[in-house]
């Protein structure tokens, strides 16, 4: 079909100019088929399906709690990287580093606040996301396993928050982590060795701080991003299904889907 873009307006005119054509590289998408193709070939949109059911994009369906969780994760990564520039994970330095951060570093106190409140809000958002998905019955076939991945993400979120809790090395941090890790010690047979492995010694000390720091800034963020990618990928794959007509028996295979 030959449809020429004659729309008025600055953006449309920019798109038709030689510079605009070099940026966007493809003509404006005017027909639905064209738009779907445009979505499909956009790198930044590849985590989204092309179409979704009207019912499922409304606020009342999901309360957008997954979006909230993801945004908070983004806020935590950005603010956390800023904090890393001013922090050394050693008992002699950690606490004074936080004091310096709050009193001398530009936006130090503010970025620390953003990191702290984002962390608490993310635990809440993830928990509410789980509850919302439950009441919506959104884990019904064929989405069961994405619920399981979500449980893993909840646990990773808790671990992220808990390991970060120790880093300011104040009384609040020290004793909260002491209480928290005591629970691991109650596991029969392996409890004490698990606890010692976590703490790097019999009590919370210098090696605990270093271990929690490495877990907090490297190991757990990588894991959470990896698992989140799988979570979103599965969400996208299933997002166009009509769950009302689904059961275990008529779940489409990937081949059925690609033929559709």
């Amino acid at each position, binding site marked *: 079909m030959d449809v020429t873009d004659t729309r008025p307006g600055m953006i449309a005119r920019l798109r038709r100019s030689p510079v605009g054509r070099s940026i966007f590289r493809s003509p404006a998408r005017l027909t*639905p088929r064209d738009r779907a193709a445009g979505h499909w070939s956009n790198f930044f949109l590849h985590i989204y399906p092309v179409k*979704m059911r009207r019912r499922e994009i409304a606020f009342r369906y999901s309360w957008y709690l997954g*979006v909230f969780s993801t945004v908070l994760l983004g806020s935590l990564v950005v603010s956390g990287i800023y904090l890393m520039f001013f922090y050394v994970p050693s008992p002699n330095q950690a606490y004074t580093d936080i004091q310096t951060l709050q009193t001398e570093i530009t936006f130090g106190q503010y970025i620390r606040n953003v990191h702290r409140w984002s962390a608490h809000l993310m635990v809440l958002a993830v928990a509410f996301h789980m509850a919302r998905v439950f009441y919506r019955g959104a884990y019904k076939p064929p989405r069961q396993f994405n619920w399981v991945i979500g449980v893993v993400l909840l646990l990773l979120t808790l671990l992220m928050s808990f390991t970060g809790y120790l880093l300011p090395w104040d*009384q609040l*941090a020290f004793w909260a982590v002491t209480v*928290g890790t005591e629970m691991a010690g109650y596991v029969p047979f392996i409890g004490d060795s698990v606890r010692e492995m976590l703490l790097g010694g019999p009590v919370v000390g210098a090696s605990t701080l270093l271990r929690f720091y490495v877990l907090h800034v490297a190991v757990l963020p990588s894991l959470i991003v990896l698992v989140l990618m799988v979570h979103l990928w599965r969400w996208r794959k299933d997002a166009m299904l009509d769950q009302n007509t689904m059961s275990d028996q008529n779940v489409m295979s990937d081949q059925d889907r690609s033929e559709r």
Partner: protein
Amino acid sequence: MTDPETPVAVNRPATSPDGRRVLGMVPGKPVAGDRKEPDEQDLVMVWPHLLVRHAVAAMSMLLLVLVVSVFFDAPLRSVANPTLTPNPEKAPWYFAALQELLSHFHPLVAGVLIPTGIIVGLVALPYIDNGSEQRVRYRKVAVAMFTLFLVAWIVLTIIGFAFRGPNWDWVWPWTDWHGEL
């Protein structure tokens, strides 16, 4: 022209928005019936319908964090001191329910069996409540069990977070505040 009942001059050449000439317009309803009402099950394009909503949601949450951070500072107590145990000794708020349970049950029950049971239960949930029916009224048992768990957990968290003071004794948060964020 916006009122469908008003007759439109059909013999005057009109111009459509893209500049092409329109030969004629016929007033009234189409033969095939009215315009299709949007259906809840219709597939709509994610761009713009969902992406605009997601962008608004994302920016609202970001705004909330940025504004809260202006008015509330993250806490920083005195430097860690392994010889000075605070009373009460509190875990982070999301473990407050577990800590509250620990004060009632044997550590093996409250610290190991219950958390393990919760995780196993959550993982197994979609395979236990495995019918294809999504609506709440067709899966009353699962909904009742989950709600019971959720309410109990929230109540325990609030008790452990706000209603426990020195020696893990009961306090009223409005007279004696011991919650820590």
